[in-house]
């Protein structure tokens, strides 16, 4: 494995972090840990500890949120950037952050912390529990401005994956978009390229996805589209390893690219 300047910088930062345990804004943090859930008087928040520091991962929101909370009973791969923001629930915020629930059970991941006044979260207006629209519900809390509907339908799609994982609940919406485009455009061919990737952790170690996950991802997408009725389409299905990780945006390597052709 070659050491690129970016990789060297990450390794150095990781080494520095392990010595000083400081978390400077802009630093990448990639680590595997047990998630911790802390109750509050409103919604719970999710934390993880690494090298003696506590990081804030996300709040409990809803399935359509950009970041979904991890799971007790499983370790989580955290890949994020230290934000220059006040602590939330006692943790340094990581933004952006990608969380991957690791598939195997780890019963030692069981920490639930009680609510404390000092970690209170306030929302205005207060949001009652239960299914809801609005903030912390089915809408993105910070929705991007609506763009004009493009005259031409998108032809390329990317599905991002959790580490070592196949299809997930959040992928259903993108698959629906692909199906709609194929039907509307009467597309003749769909190219599916899946990647197996690795992550360079902040401690310098590399975490690599299991063999065959790229192929599984690719074949699963093709199978799903066929099962959804897109049987008259030619599928070009391939899989490969993503470029070596550099510790900066390794999560982007875990993906399937889909291109729709007329």
């Amino acid at each position, binding site marked *: 494995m070659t050491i690129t300047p970016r990789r060297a910088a990450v390794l150095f930062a990781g080494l520095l972090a392990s010595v000083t345990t400081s978390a400077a804004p802009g630093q990448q943090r990639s680590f595997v840990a047990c998630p911790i859930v802390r109750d509050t008087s409103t919604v719970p928040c999710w934390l993880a500890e690494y090298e003696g520091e506590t990081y804030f991962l996300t709040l409990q929101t809803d399935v359509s949120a950009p970041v979904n909370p991890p799971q007790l009973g*499983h370790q989580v791969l955290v890949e994020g950037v230290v934000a220059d923001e006040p602590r939330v629930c006692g943790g340094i915020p990581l933004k952006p952050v990608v969380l991957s629930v690791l598939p195997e059970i780890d019963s030692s991941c069981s920490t639930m912390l009680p609510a404390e006044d000092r970690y209170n979260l306030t929302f205005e207006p207060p949001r009652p529990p239960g299914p809801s629209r609005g903030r912390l519900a089915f809408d993105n809390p910070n929705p991007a401005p609506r763009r004009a509907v493009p005259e031409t339908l998108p032809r390329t799609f990317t599905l991002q994956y959790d580490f070592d994982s196949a299809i997930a609940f959040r992928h*259903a919406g993108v698959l629906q978009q692909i*199906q709609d485009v194929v039907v509307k455009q009467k597309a003749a061919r769909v190219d599916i390229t899946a990647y197996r990737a690795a992550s360079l952790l902040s401690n310098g170690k590399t975490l690599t996805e299991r063999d065959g996950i790229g192929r599984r991802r690719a074949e699963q997408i093709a199978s*799903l589209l066929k099962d*959804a009725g897109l049987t008259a389409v030619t599928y070009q299905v391939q899989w490969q390893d993503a470029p070596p990780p550099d510790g900066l945006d390794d999560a982007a390597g875990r993906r399937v690219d889909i291109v729709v052709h007329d």
Partner: protein
Amino acid sequence: MTHRVRPFLLLTLAALAVAAGLRAAEPARWWSPGEGGRLPAYATYPNEYGEVGVLNSSGPIETKGHPFFEPIGTNGRACVSCHQPANAMSLSVAAIQERWRATKGTDPIFAAIDGMNCPGLPAGDPASHSLLLERGLFRVFLPWPPVTHDGTAVDPEFSIEVVRDPTGCNTSPRYGLTSATPEISVYRRPRPVANTKYFTHHGFGVTSFVGKGPLATVRDAETGLPTSMNMMADARVSTLKTQAMSAAQSHLQIAGALDEARLRKIVEFEGQVYSAQVRHRAAGDLMEPGGPPGFGVRNLAAASTGVLGNNTTQWVFPVGDVWKKLATPAGATDAPRNRMRESIARGHDVFMFRTFWIRDVQHLNTVGLGNPTKRTCSTCHGMHMTGMDVANGWMDLGATNLPWAREEPLNPWNQRKPQMPLFKITCKASAAPHAFLGRTIYTQDPGRALVTGRCTDVGSIVMQQFRGLAARAPYFANGSAESIRDLVDFYDRRFNIGYTAQERDDLINFLSAL
């Protein structure tokens, strides 16, 4: 073992007969196959909480010659045998026991194919029908390895081993796993055939892809549209027509197949019939003008389908505030009624707003909500007016998987023996494990996994609607909750909710009014 069970069974039946005798003044109307007569546009039937209503929105139904009411199979059953109006178009265990007494076990519902613990057991012996008589369970026999809805063979991700076989069916050389046509027998409750527009809708949540595992949504072969896959406990068929075809062959043992004309009549009937509690013994009329708009059959028939309830604009059950604080002058005769109405309103708020930690539920905590998630009953039971999931509502609550499933306590002082089969599931190393039980799972009913062959689906059951609960105990697909109180207590134990006595009573009162 049969002889050890029998004394207890008879004792149970005797006790239930006494209990039933207390209600003998208002016997529930039983519709026998082929008896004829008119099913009115609107009828009510008594139950221990009040009255359940059945509304035929297209008008009265002449049952003579109607395929839902005629014995179209070879065993004398009709669809109505297991979908009785008095039981909210399902079948209560109380009604089953009453039929046993009235017919000495000869009613077609006790047919050997699935009304017996396993075909071939001694006829006329209550022990041969103990799962039906005690828990309201019919045998559902499914091929192993599984086949999909279109008959495609599935390569399962796990092996299955029979650990306990109290019915003898899963180890039977004729009906079991090692038979010439290997089958697995599980035991399930009949689901209500009413309010069907809510699980045949094409609204929110019904798309081409399921999300709970790599799965494309099953489509209606006639319309080409995706279905909600919310109809059966394991979602193995998903339209009223395919369900009728399947039930006619398995439960009714029809010779040949149902023709299109009869199928159309069955589907038409099922598409227009509504059922819900309409009167509460203490709260009174649930449909009176100005009352909460979420109760009763007429509101149910009028409401929109495919709507996910929410806590700001459209509650799951829109009861509003009208019963929250009722003015009751001192000495007023309606004081007890008002107190119950207030309790029901509080029970709604327990359902909708009382948070607890929902934990270790496959296909709920794994779909992006986190584990645990601090939410409410309405998180899972979110469909407006019914409390189902809006689509693809299967998840592993723990009703059939150990350690949460109801098991008989084994000790020298307990005469009862386990009633339910127990299977050991061993998942292949290459398969994604069940998120919270791993790769070795003990279960009374693998549920959806018997259709998909997936490890992550073991124990997942499609949740049911909340309507007409008062008329159709017991609850859960395996009949493990004998009463609404049992139902609430299961959740209390499962999620360590810690309901107060008041919250528990209020929630029970609310559920009994649906």
